[in-house]
């Protein structure tokens, strides 16, 4: 009797403490999750506030003027679009093919482990190293010169691990019952992959592609030695032209321009355009993905 009472008393006390601990921890988790949104909001708000005055029709449709202290950033926008889209066009087929091989076809073993090790390490290489690799390999050794092509290939190498990773995740999420159903009907493995597995994985693959595209569009280091030029009033006409690019333009104006202070609004304006470009691509991807998902249901 006595013992039971003690137990109940301490139980009550401990219960209060247990609940308090839970409350504090959950509060902490909530704040942690919230910080992400705040960070994004602050970055976007800051750039908006500082940059929106620079955004005019002229800014978006004209090349830079007067040693890049006036005028617009059209060549940068076009250049970044070329580099980003080009990188995805190259990296997406290779990345998806690699992921299909790794996830659907390769038998576990040494070779598979080696390839995975390679991909994981590729993902950890700093972007400036990709830039130097692109300079040495594509620009000099393959004699592509500083060009869109060299930049695209360098950015593709950088985005490959992102695409492979997200494609593999998407393939893993496709239930095995789909594969079994298809094979049991006399489909070959390739038919199963092409007709059932890839369509089911498509939303996830697209997400990866767009993440890769935004990453490629925002990178500075990989293109500064391979594709980006300090200034050109011309729009590119071939894969072997050099281009201006938004991130590199910001870097140039902020560190090596003729009048760094005077061009601050232009720097923020350019940043704003870059962020808007990347965010709108992400948004488009989300809309596309949710449409695909609805279509499948």
């Amino acid at each position: 009797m006595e013992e039971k009472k003690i137990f109940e008393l301490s139980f009550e006390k401990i219960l209060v403490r247990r609940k308090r601990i839970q409350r504090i921890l959950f509060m902490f988790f909530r704040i942690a999750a919230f910080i992400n949104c705040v960070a994004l909001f602050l970055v976007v708000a800051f750039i908006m506030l500082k940059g929106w005055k620079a955004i005019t029709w002229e800014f978006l449709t004209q090349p830079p003027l007067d040693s890049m202290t006036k005028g617009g950033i059209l060549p940068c926008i076009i250049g970044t679009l070329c580099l980003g889209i080009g990188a995805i066009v190259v990296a997406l087929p290779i990345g998806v093919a690699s992921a299909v091989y790794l996830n659907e076809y390769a038998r576990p073993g040494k070779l598979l482990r080696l390839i995975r090790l390679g991909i994981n390490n590729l993902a950890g290489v700093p972007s400036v190293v990709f830039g130097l690799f692109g300079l040495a390999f594509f620009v000099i050794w393959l004699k592509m010169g500083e060009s869109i092509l060299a930049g695209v290939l360098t950015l593709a190498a950088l985005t490959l691990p992102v695409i492979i990773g997200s494609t593999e995740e998407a393939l893993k999420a496709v239930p095995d019952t789909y594969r079994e159903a298809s094979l049991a009907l006399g489909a070959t493995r390739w038919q199963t992959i092409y007709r059932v597995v890839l369509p089911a994985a498509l939303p996830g693959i697209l997400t990866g592609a767009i993440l890769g595209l935004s990453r490629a569009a925002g990178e500075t280091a990989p293109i500064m030695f391979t594709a980006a030029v300090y200034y050109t009033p011309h729009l590119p006409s071939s894969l072997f032209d050099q281009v201006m690019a938004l991130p590199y333009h910001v870097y140039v104006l902020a560190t090596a321009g003729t009048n760094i202070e005077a061009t601050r609004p232009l720097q923020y304006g350019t940043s704003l355009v870059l962020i808007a470009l990347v965010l709108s691509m992400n948004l488009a991807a989300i809309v596309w993905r949710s449409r695909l998902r609805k279509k499948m249901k």
Partner: protein
Amino acid sequence: MIMTDNYKMSIRHLNFYYGAAQALYDISLDINKSQVTALIGPSGCGKSTFIRCLNRMNDLIPISRVEGEIILEDIDINNPSVDVVMLRRRVGMVFQKPNPFPKNIFDNVAYGLRVNGVKDKAFIESRVEESLKKAALWDEIRDRIHESALGLSGGQQQRMCIARALAVEPEILLMDEPASALDPIATQKIEDLIGELKENYTIIIVTHNMQQAARVSDMTAFFYMGKLIELDETDTLFTRPRLKQTEDYITGRFG
């Protein structure tokens, strides 16, 4: 007893291993043409593993290994010269859980024809309709054949999966607990269907449910711990089993 000239499939001394673990021990068994053979036994007794050997579905498991012969008419299906794609066209399968593709009903049923190279649209259309009729689903879904198969009820999905398997005209239909995820009414429909299908198809069905085995099958095989314990005509096996082990199982004393 067993009609000797009428075997569709003969299994001889089949051993099956998952890596080092042996799952099937020396199984020999004949499957009669145009009959329903039921495989019963407690969970983990190897009946699903066994049925998946018959269309080489176990090929998907990298560490698996098969010994012995599985003769379909006159070919050993594990012979390297046998094309597994061809085999699976002849030996269709319906799985435990309905597994429609995230496509519309028509595309689901037409899938097997299309992957096997049929291009003729009129032919595909008539075969899809015919298969859905055979699976007793046509009347329920004829107006929504171009809607997603995922919108069907579980029982309808399973009958659609049966139609999908029938569309490629297999000779043998393997059914791995086809009604275990369904309610009694849907189960009843699947069982009726099995009775109608056996005229034209050889059916092998795995089931947990002994009443179901007794209702639908002509022959019943009792598996236990990876071994085939007893095979007999269903009526005989359920009323006068030869072995004590079989009797204990069917009377519910273990399992």
